[in-house]
């Protein structure tokens, strides 16, 4: 047995490269100091990472404090309406210039020596500048550090790599599927509330993989749902559908279908009408019989739509959760979880959808509880010495041919219970980590 501490990341990546081609993956990647360090350097500093939803900062001066690859950043709408991502560090001696999780500010003033920045990051105030700096300090040299941002349908992303392609190319056609969450009407979506936040002893990749379309776990991990009468049977509701992935991009979506179901059930008429206006015929055709849409935008943003009801057995209401799996240490993660609602929907529906979210997928949600209990135990075991030489099988759907005439972009296979999306996610992960 080898000790996890002594394994270099290059050895691990060699294993991943060889095994992935054969439909296996080394267990050690799920709880490894070497892998964590390499991910921070080679993946999270290069990829587009989710920062905030537009609706969290609707007015000039509105800000939220977020974490971008280990960096505390202020995501703020400046006086001109431009969303900016600014490192939360005074350029003079490094104190945090913003200490609240959200708010509204025209300026950020450092509480150490009083340097003051406009909400677009410009340094505009330096106490005693004339008498102590003798003209040697040029304010424009010392603005808050700004990080590149870009957005799609209200989702604001940041990227620390100036050489990375723009967000549109990064998403690479995945927008077609993201629209099921983000374009439920011409007005798009809004967050119903700030995110639930909690810290968990879980490796972020387990969650990202699961949300890339793990239809396999549902009937077992969430067996209570069948027991209580939420689902009729696992065979009829959790094996149909599609899994779609985008090679070299890493994104994946699982579309769980219930053939013959009332199209778009669980949405109010206003939202069904809104989708008819906002979505293309190909999108509508594909989404109308989709019961569950679960996806990961590589590397660590996931979205889920599913119906849920206060009373088991009733059709229920559709809710949409968006979650960010942020690694903050080896096998440790900061969780942020939002509920998105269609902006144009009736308020009563928004509230009902949020209630369904809290019951199913908020921090205290019944599905959430099952998932994180399992995932934290996977993480713990992946750190065991005996696990360091073991591998997991990723064989499901290995020989499946893509569907030739699928209505959407990307590579689609059927059924929804498959590991095709996961192999693609890992291949992309490997491609990032192989680049020194």
């Amino acid at each position, binding site marked *: 047995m080898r000790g996890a501490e002594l394994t270099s990341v290059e050895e691990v990546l060699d294993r991943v490269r060889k095994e992935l081609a054969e439909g296996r993956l080394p267990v050690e990647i799920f709880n490894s100091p070497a892998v964590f360090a390499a991910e921070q350097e080679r993946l999270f500093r290069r990829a587009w990472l989710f920062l905030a939803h537009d609706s969290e900062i609707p007015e000039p001066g509105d800000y939220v404090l977020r974490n971008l690859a280990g960096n505390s950043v202020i995501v703020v709408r400046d006086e001109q309406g431009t969303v900016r991502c600014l490192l939360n560090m005074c350029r003079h001696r490094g104190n945090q210039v913003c200490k*609240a999780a959200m708010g509204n500010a025209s300026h950020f003033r450092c509480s150490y020596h009083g340097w003051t920045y406009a909400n677009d990051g410009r340094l505009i105030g330096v106490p005693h500048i004339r008498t102590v700096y003798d003209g040697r300090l040029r304010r424009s040299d010392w603005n808050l550090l700004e990080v590149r941002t870009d957005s799609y349908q209200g989702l604001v992303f940041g990227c620390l790599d100036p050489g990375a392609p723009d967000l549109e190319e990064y998403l690479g056609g995945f927008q077609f599927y993201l629209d099921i969450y983000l374009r439920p009407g011409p007005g798009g979506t809004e967050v119903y*509330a*700030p995110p639930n936040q909690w810290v968990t002893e879980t490796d972020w990749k387990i969650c990202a993989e699961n949300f890339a379309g793990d239809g396999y776990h549902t009937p077992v991990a969430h067996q209570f749902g069948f027991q*209580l009468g939420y689902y009729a049977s696992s065979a009829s509701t959790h094996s149909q559908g599609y899994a779609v992935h985008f090679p070299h991009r890493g994104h994946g979506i699982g579309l769980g279908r219930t053939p013959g179901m009332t199209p778009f059930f669980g949405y109010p008429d206003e939202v069904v009408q809104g989708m008819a206006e906002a979505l293309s015929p190909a999108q509508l055709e594909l989404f109308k019989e989709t019961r569950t849409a679960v996806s990961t935008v590589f590397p660590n943003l996931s979205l889920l739509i599913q119906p849920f009801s206060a009373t088991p057995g009733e059709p229920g209401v559709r809710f949409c959760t968006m979650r960010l799996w942020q690694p903050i240490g080896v096998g440790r993660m900061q969780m942020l979880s939002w509920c998105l609602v269609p902006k144009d929907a009736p308020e009563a529906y928004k509230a009902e959808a949020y209630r369904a979210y809290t019951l199913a997928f908020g921090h*205290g949600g*019944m599905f*959430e509880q099952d998932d994180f209990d399992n995932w934290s135990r996977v993480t713990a075991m992946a750190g065991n010495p005996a696990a360091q030489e073991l591998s997991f099988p990723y064989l499901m759907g290995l020989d499946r041919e893509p569907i030739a005439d699928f209505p959407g972009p990307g590579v689609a296979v059927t059924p929804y219970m498959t590991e095709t999306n996961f192999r693609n996610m890992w291949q992309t992960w490997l491609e990032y980590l192989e680049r020194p």
Partner: protein
Amino acid sequence: MTSNGASEALDQERLPVELARRVEQFLFREAQLLDERRFEEWLALFCEDASYEAPLRITRERQVDSELSPTGRIFWDSKQTLGVRVQRLCSDFAWAEQPPSRTRHFVTNVRTWRADGVIQARCNLLVYRNRGEDPRADLYSADRMDELVEEGDDFRIRRRILVVDQANLTGNSLSVLL
């Protein structure tokens, strides 16, 4: 409204000592039912139209009136959905509670008064939660406000609002009731 969204207890009509003491004993018994995992008996302590809410706390600057999100909730339950949670906890498939959490609910600083004819009970709540062989524990400290209805010699909970004193929580799963 205070920073925690509750009517303040201090200036209100206080309950007679004997009644206040019965309210306290009721809250202690309720806590015991949770700690002993007698969830169905616990659920029976709620009125049919009961609500059970835990607003989200957000770190804000001091100048802001309240740290509580007007829309965000950790829990937003009715008796019906609490019933679903209890049914799940009593099933063989609540993996997050297998093996079960050990909880101890500490109910202290109980203040009682009457507002608009309804009994109000506000307490400091500390829930210790430990699982398996893990030597660490999750602690949830909360400001808890209950509206109680008298039913004979006993009480029923009509409304519970609890505010956890943390914006970023711990716990791989929040599978315990507060």
